[in-house]
């Protein structure tokens, strides 16, 4: 079995959710993760909060630090979980259940994690 990263991408990170929305979203996310964990396919979860985020870029050979991750970037990464799956297709099925997809324009990126065995 391989490991896959399921990366949550929000279309507009600047949009703040109300406390109730946050709570509902948290519950739905926990239910989604719980479903994967119940199949013994969950490895880890990492949230990436938007506050106190920074973006470092280079402009005219100079390093620029801005409060991120909003601005020019269209999609903001909200976090990612790592799952075990037999195939990319199975990982995609897991990704389809993520509540972030309820928001139009949001997306889930599914990436296989490289094994450090020299052959990917």
């Amino acid at each position: 079995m391989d490991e896959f990263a399921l990366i949550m991408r929000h279309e507009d990170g600047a949009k703040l959710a109300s406390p109730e929305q946050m709570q509902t979203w948290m519950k739905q996310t926990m239910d989604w993760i719980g479903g994967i964990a119940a199949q013994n396919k969950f490895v880890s979860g990492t949230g990436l909060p938007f506050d106190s985020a920074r973006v470092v870029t280079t402009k005219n050979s100079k390093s620029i630090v801005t409060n991120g991750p909003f601005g020019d970037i269209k999609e903001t990464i909200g976090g990612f979980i790592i799952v075990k799956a037999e195939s990319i297709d199975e990982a995609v099925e897991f990704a389809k259940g993520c509540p972030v997809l309820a928001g139009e324009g949001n997306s889930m990126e599914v990436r296989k994690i490289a094994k450090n065995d020299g052959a990917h």
Partner: protein
Amino acid sequence: MNQQELIPHLFRTEFRKITSVLGKLLGIDNLELAEDIASDTFLSAMETWSYNGIPDNPTAWLYTVAKNKAKNHLQRNNLFAQKISPQIKSSLAEGDEIEIDLSEKNITDSQLQMLFAICHPSISTEAQIGLSLRILCGFGIDEIAGALLSNKETINKRLVRAKEKLRAEKVQILFPNETEIENRLGPVLLTLYLLFSEGYYSESKDEVLRKDLCIEAMRLTHLLIENEQTNKPQVNALIALMCFHASRFEARKNNRGEFVLYQDQDETLWNQALIKKGVFFFNQASHGSKLSKYHLEAGIAYWHTIKADTKEKWEGILQLYNQLLQLEYSPVAALNRTYALSKVYGKAEAIIQAEKLNLSDNHFYFTLLGELYTDIDIQKAKSNFTNALALAKTTVDKQTIQNKLDKL
């Protein structure tokens, strides 16, 4: 209590105290010797008390005799005694009396130290449980075999091998230091958890025995609570968990010896005092920053002390199982989560998730599916219960499933 009952009762309470103190004194190499001296003491009691009657203070009598037997042995085997401990070595050199401290404090301290020594990761958890039952709980080999549904020879072999392993690893009968305690607590708590489970879920026919296992597990966990250095949040969570589960002991079996399912239990038989105690310890556990699986399981167990079928209860349980499964997967947790899910989101959604679990070697899996399909698809319910029946091993389990099939 007449002599018939007194000696077995004293055996249960005092054997482990004497063995722990002597075990600590003589070291891990000589656990057999500690047990032998303790056993000899009870043999003497049986012989002497039949003729002379029961002494006024039976416990003091036992302690005196145990001390004398130990001292005699050490003096007879001077060379052997010198290898054992520097304290004895120096007191022998000075011609002092060898002090065997059977004070309450030393008994408690010795038991705690033995607990850490026995619950050592170098031996299997079955061996840890067996050894704990023998040395810390005073169970006889027959009783251990009965409780663990094994036979005398297997248990004996297991204990002998375990002691050899501990000797080979040179495990010290010491209280771990501050930094080590967190690491060593893991195996200790797991053993106590499994010990309790053994009593709670045991298929052994002896009701009294099974309850004893739970009581012993709780007693040993309580020892940890009473000691400042081991009175950690997760230990409080573990004992809360045990209190909550144990509160339903009386209601779990009917007078025909059949298991009574949770939803059919007579609430008035639930021990409210134990539940209250559990809540107290659960509050004590709500400190610190580490969330252990015992915290989550205690939370789930707490919800089960409230029989009412509210949405809040099942949503709470579902969220706790979500977290528990992320921390540590187990088929039981996966199945229980799915049941909670059915209570929150309905049977249809639960069936979809249940069928992804793929636990086809587990009769509880098919029982759950049978439950979920009941009132939805009778044929599927029947076939799932039938699969469950085929996989179930014990008569009690088979009977429970048969009852469900008959109800359809």
